[in-house]
Every structure is written in structure tokens, then in C-alpha cells.
């Protein structure tokens, strides 16, 4: 057990920006490992877990959420300044999240649809990933992130090694678990070939096409998959809609999303 005295343990901070909290919850979800983790790092700032907040600087910061307000813009700079390593977690922090749908419509149109008095809001016209504002040391993808991958990032940080996290497609995980390909076997629209692995090909194993939670893989060729889904009978708009979810603003998924309306 890597347990050292409190002063020697690296400090961990968890920050929330515009997001649903699901990703930071993954940390609390590490039930079996949580005590061991608390023995290896000093959890200095994690308001979802404790009101006790220790001042920075912090050795490692996990940042959840996208940047959507003027306040976010300032706060992320402060987080960066007080963090030795900054790791963004989840689709919101790494690509802007589903709220980045607003990037592709007239400014304020979503706010007017959702809120009775949008004039009380102070928000930016776009939802952008953390990396558009400050330098990021590592990006962990997923909506939500996989708790095993989160632990792996923290363990790699503690051991001073590179995280063992793949950048290849979901298809590779799908084949490794011997799932019969839905796209080939029954023409299901599946984003697996262009989506980053991480979930273990959860949806195809249950008979559903991949929705693209982990964003584009390292080598995603979206135009080619578009052509195939089109040949299977999907309209261009349907494919655009399929891509316009949690990672709508990821450059490789975005290419043709300008026309998508709420």
C-alpha cells in the first residue's frame, strides 16, 4: 500500500465548471479503492465530498466542465495557476459538452427556450473546452468518464508513468470482447469506428450502436463513416444528429454540424 504521511502525500483538487457533476462523481464511485486513494493523495479540495477546503497550490487538479461564463474564464486561469498538473475530465471539459450545441445556433436562442428570464444570465455565446483557455496536461475523455480510467490516470501520476489509456476506436474493444458487429450484421448506425475507446464497447455489447461518448478516436475518419451510414439509408441530417451529442464541438465530429437546430 502506497500510504505516506499527510505532509508527503501529493494534494488533489477537484474543480467544477459548466457540467452535470457526473464525472467528479466517478471519483466517489471508486468505492473499493477510495480509502487506498485517500491514503495515497491528500484530498485538498473536493466540495462534492467535503466542505473542508485546504488552500493551494495543488499537485494535481481534476477539472470537470466547460467554459460558458465570464466567471468560468477567470476561474480556470486561477485553477491553472494553483495546479502543478491539470487534468481535464469528461466530454464537457475536453470538448465543450452537449451544451456546446449553442455554438452552432444564434447566440442566446437556447437560453430563451429554457429560461423564463434569460436577462438574469451572464453567459458567453459559446461553450468551449478548458484547453481553449489554459494549457492542459492530460485529457480524459468520456460522458461520463470511466472510473477505471480515472483511477489509472491518478495511479500513473503517483507512479510517474504514462497512463495506459488507448486512443483507438471502440471497435477494437468491441472485437476484443467478441461482440458481433452490429453495423455489418444488421446495418445499425454505430459510431464505434470513429469513437475513442474507454467504455469497453458497452452499447454494442447490448445491441445498441455507439453514441460517441468518448469523442473522436485518434484517427477518426468521420466523412467515410458518414458515407457508409448514408448508404445504409440514414439521411445527412440523421447522421449529423447522431454526431451532435456530448462531443458535438469536437473538431472531427463538428465538421457538418452548423445546420443542427435545437
Amino acid at each position, binding site marked *: *500500500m*502506497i500510504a505516506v504521511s499527510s505532509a508527503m502525500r501529493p494534494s488533489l483538487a477537484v474543480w467544477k465548471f459548466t457540467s452535470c457533476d457526473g464525472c467528479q462523481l466517478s471519483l466517489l464511485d471508486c468505492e473499493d*479503492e477510495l480509502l*487506498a*486513494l485517500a*491514503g*495515497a493523495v491528500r484530498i485538498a479540495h473536493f466540495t462534492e465530498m467535503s466542505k473542508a477546503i485546504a488552500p493551494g497550490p495543488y499537485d494535481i487538479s481534476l477539472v470537470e466542465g466547460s467554459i460558458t461564463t465570464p466567471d468560468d474564464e477567470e476561474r480556470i486561469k486561477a485553477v491553472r495557476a494553483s495546479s502543478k498538473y491539470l487534468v481535464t475530465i469528461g466530454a464537457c471539459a475536453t470538448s465543450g459538452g452537449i451544451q456546446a450545441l449553442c455554438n452552432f445556433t444564434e447566440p442566446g436562442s437556447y437560453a430563451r427556450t429554457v429560461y423564463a428570464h434569460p436577462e438574469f444570465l451572464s453567459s458567453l455565446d459559446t461553450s468551449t473546452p478548458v484547453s481553449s483557455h489554459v494549457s492542459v496536461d492530460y485529457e480524459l475523455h468520456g460522458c461520463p468518464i470511466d472510473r477505471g480510467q480515472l483511477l*489509472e490516470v491518478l*495511479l500513473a501520476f503517483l*507512479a510517474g*508513468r504514462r497512463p*495506459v489509456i*488507448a*486512443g*483507438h*476506436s471502440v*471497435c*477494437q474493444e468491441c*472485437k*476484443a*470482447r*467478441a*461482440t*458481433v*458487429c452490429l*453495423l*455489418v*450484421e*444488421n446495418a445499425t448506425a*454505430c459510431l*464505434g*469506428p*470513429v469513437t475513442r475507446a474507454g467504455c469497453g464497447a458497452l452499447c454494442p455489447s447490448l445491441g445498441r450502436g455507439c453514441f460517441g461518448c468518448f469523442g473522436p*478516436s*485518434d*484517427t*477518426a*475518419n468521420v466523412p*467515410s*463513416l458518414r*458515407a*457508409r451510414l448514408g448508404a445504409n439509408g440514414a439521411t445527412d441530417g440523421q447522421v449529423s444528429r447522431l454526431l451532435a451529442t456530448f462531443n458535438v464541438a469536437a473538431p472531427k465530429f463538428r465538421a457538418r454540424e452548423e445546420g443542427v437546430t435545437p
Partner: protein
Amino acid sequence: MTFAESFVVDVDGLDALVQVLIQRGYETKGPTVHDGAVVPGPITGVREFPRGVRDEQAPGRYRLGKGDERLFAWAVGPGSWKADFFPANQVEWRAHTSEGALSFAEVGTASTPLAIIGARPCELAAIEVFDRVLGEGAHPDPRYVTRRDTCFMVVVECAVPAGTCFCSSMGTGPDVKSGFDIALSELSDADGHRFLARAGSSHGADVLAAIPHALASELDLRARLESLEHAEASMGRHLETEGLAELLARNIEHPRWSDVAERCLSCANCTMVCPTCFCSDVLDISELSGALERRRVWSSCFDLDHSYLHGGAVRSSTSSRYRQWMTHKLSTWWDQFDTSGCVGCGRCVTWCPVSIDITEEVEAIVRTDGAARVTVPTSRSDS
């Protein structure tokens, strides 16, 4: 009973064969229907075989439909026996750190011997390719060798090739000549539904002697040859292998590589389903408890990380990755292992989500042998 003799076994006899192998302590596996495809699975008797099933295969397309009384009237599906000898995720060793000291634990090689009942000829050929990769050389994989040496192999010759099959081009089917314990040919004609059986090892002869069988007639032997001839004539694909290794070697700058890269998703499905693709990644996993583990997992030349050396990936473009894959299969495999890396099973063709067909890609290069590479403007990104 001599090896040269052929016997006739009926469907109940096949069931008896499974039972004998179970009694002799084998883990029995064979083709089964699962999630709409024929895939390897556990077999406890003939009832699990894909009886009455036909497949329809084309580039990027696979459908199962209704067939006749036969159990083996289909061609290979997405799963291959590779996974049994070269698991997708295998622990190589374990260790533990405690107070700064490292202690290693052995991961044993022992496993229940495997009996495969119903491998196709191209699948046996693929395992024989694998033998050269993992079973021979200076550092054979001990777990591979144990699993392979203790394996009992029943091969069923092919009567109904799929639209993506080209084993006859590669010399790996539809018949089987050696490397099996028992070879079967399924016959279904006026003389009834039966199997022609041959032993290929003393072990196979011994098992065959233990199940109900009769000596085959001239008619049975002729029926097998006719079935094979018919299979050979209905191969869905063809690949001209004469001079192919050299052809690809002199066309590494051919414009077709960029053309296929426009379509290729770099998704790695082709390498995952290929029964001879052996690339792996070695992962070191450390846990908070101090436990360490080294794992070997399937990898692919279509992964960007697979060619990652200091500072970046060597094969950063899809054209270079596809070229690596195809030229390895059909050309440099000869230099490395003195055999083709492709056995003509057609899996990569059927299971490519965007229907890329290795035989068609070869054909395109054959037609324009020596075509100069199109100059790519320097501003264009290379991925």
C-alpha cells in the same frame, strides 16, 4: 484402421465424437450461432452446431438465413480460433511491491486441453501460420505452445464458401490435407446425410475407432470430391498470388494507398478479425495496493500508438497504416516467416464497416503496376 482409410459417420456418430472428447477431459468448442453469426463457442453435443443455417457474406455485410439439414453449410464468421491461442488480454506476470522490494509471481501455463470440433480448413491454415509466429523462433510463447500441443483438432472441409472467401487462391482450402486429428466432409445427397471421416494422427484414429463408423464406399469418396469441386468453383473472391509479394514491394509509392486511405476508418476491425494478425501491446499496470501486472493485449497496425517511437508515431497517415497492413500480409510476411500472412478467409472483407476488399485493392494495383505516386501538396495534413 489406417490413416489413408476413409469412414462414414452419421450425425449421431458426430455427437458420439463430442462425447468421447468430453470424456477424455477436453474442453470442447466449435462453431455455434450467437447474436446472428457463426462464432466459436462451447459444444456439448451436435445440437449446438449451426444446423440448418446459411450465411450470406459480401464486403461490409453479413446475414444468417435458413439452410438445409446440414450442420456446416456456411463459411467462417467474425470470431476465429486465434482468441483461444492468443487471448485478447493475457496476464504475462504479476509482481508485488512491499517496502521497496519487488517480488514476482509466476503465471502458470497449465490449462484444460482444448478440442476444436468444426474448424474450417482456412482456420487450421491460420493456426499453422500462428505456430511460426508464437510457437517457433528463439522465444516461443510457453502458454501458446502448451495450448497448441495439447489441442485436438477436428476440421470440417468446406462445401459452401461465402461471397468473400478465396482460400482456393491461397492454397488453404476448401479441402484439408494435413495438420488435423480428424478431417470431416459433410455429405447430403440421395445416400443420406453423413460425414466422411479421415484420421490425421494416431490420436485421431483412436478417437475415430471409439465412435460408430463404417468403411466409406467409392460413391462416398466421389461425393466428397464433387462437393469440393463445387466449392472451389463457387469461391466468392479470387487473388492472383503469382509474383504478388514482388508486385507490392515495388509499388509502395502507388497512388492507390492514398485512395484507400480516403475510405479506411483506421478502426482496426480487419486486424481484429484476421486469424493471423498477431500484433499486441504490452501494458504495465500498477495498483494502489502495490500489485503490479504485465498484460499482453491485442493491438493493431491501424492504431496510431502502435508505431509510436520517441517523439511520435512513425506511421502517422492512414495510407501508411493500410499499406503496412496489406504489404505485411501479402509480401513481407514471406520474408519474415516464409509463408503468406493471408489464408483467404475473407473476414477482413466482410467485417470492414466500409467494405474495403483486400482482393479489390490488390487488383487496383495490379492494373496500374508502377503508377507514380501523386504529389501531395505540402499544406495538406497527413492524417
